[in-house]
């Protein structure tokens, strides 16, 4: 393996996400109402099943309202974070190009510039 390969392997080796990643995922699944209990085989339409189905439906409707708000908030946060990064990048590019234009104006010293230009 050559030097570049070694550098890439080292730089790109696996790293763990932040502490508690799995716990946060499971908590999120609980909020989203994802049933994690072991499945026990029962006849489909037994009375206990129907009763539990009714209870679960009521809970699910309640949880859905909460989880939807959590989901919307989380999505907005992610969207805002991305937008902020793009804003900063755009402003940096703008600054760089304005600086280059200023340098060009200085270097050219007014040659072939339109009247009134100053930077």
């Amino acid at each position, binding site marked *: 393996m050559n030097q570049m390969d070694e550098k890439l392997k080292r730089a790109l080796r696996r790293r763990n996400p932040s502490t508690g990643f799995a716990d946060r995922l499971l908590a999120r699944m609980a909020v989203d109402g994802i049933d994690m209990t072991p499945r026990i085989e029962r006849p489909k339409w037994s009375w206990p099943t129907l009763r539990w189905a009714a209870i679960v439906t009521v809970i699910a409707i309640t949880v859905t309202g909460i989880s939807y708000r959590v989901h919307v908030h989380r999505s907005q946060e992610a969207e805002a974070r991305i*937008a*902020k990064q*793009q804003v900063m990048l755009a*402003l940096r590019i703008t*600054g*760089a190009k304005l*600086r*280059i234009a200023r340098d060009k104006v200085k270097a050219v010293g007014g040659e072939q510039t339109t009247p009134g230009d*100053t930077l």
Partner: protein
Amino acid sequence: MNRIGVSLALLILTAGAWPQQLKMPVNLDRLAAKASETTDITLNGRMLQLAAKFMNDQDDAEARSLVKKLRGIYVRSFQFEDEGEYSDSDIESVRSQLRSPLWEKIVGVRSKREGENAEIYFKGDASNQIDGLVIIAADPKELTIIHIDGPLDPSDLEKLGGDFGVPRVHIPAKPKPAKADAP
């Protein structure tokens, strides 16, 4: 009606004939296929307001005060492996929009030897304030078009000098209509 009034009337009439929004032409997307690297940023008012809400650090304060007022930020930047991958006609559809009376070219620098061009345009509103900025930076292997839509104060740009390297910009003052000065 005196000359100033006629000019103002013409400005108002002709402004309606030109699209209010600068459109990034579709042909620019073709350049992405030829470019080795592309930067494509499209942030409308809603996204800018959302971003501003999350710019709460002290370091972000000046950028936040600028961004909150804007209606949009659009960047298309293409880097090419070879020269000659784009032509003037690719940029012409942007330039033609900037010939509207709403826009004023305040910088146009062309270096024939290096083949580098830089153009800066400002858009004025009815009260002579800056309401938009376009930068076209055309190098042999790189083309960048930036459109910042919304009210801009030269002092806004200056404040960003520390973080964003934006140089001090002197905007030559437009002569104000004589009548407008009267209280």
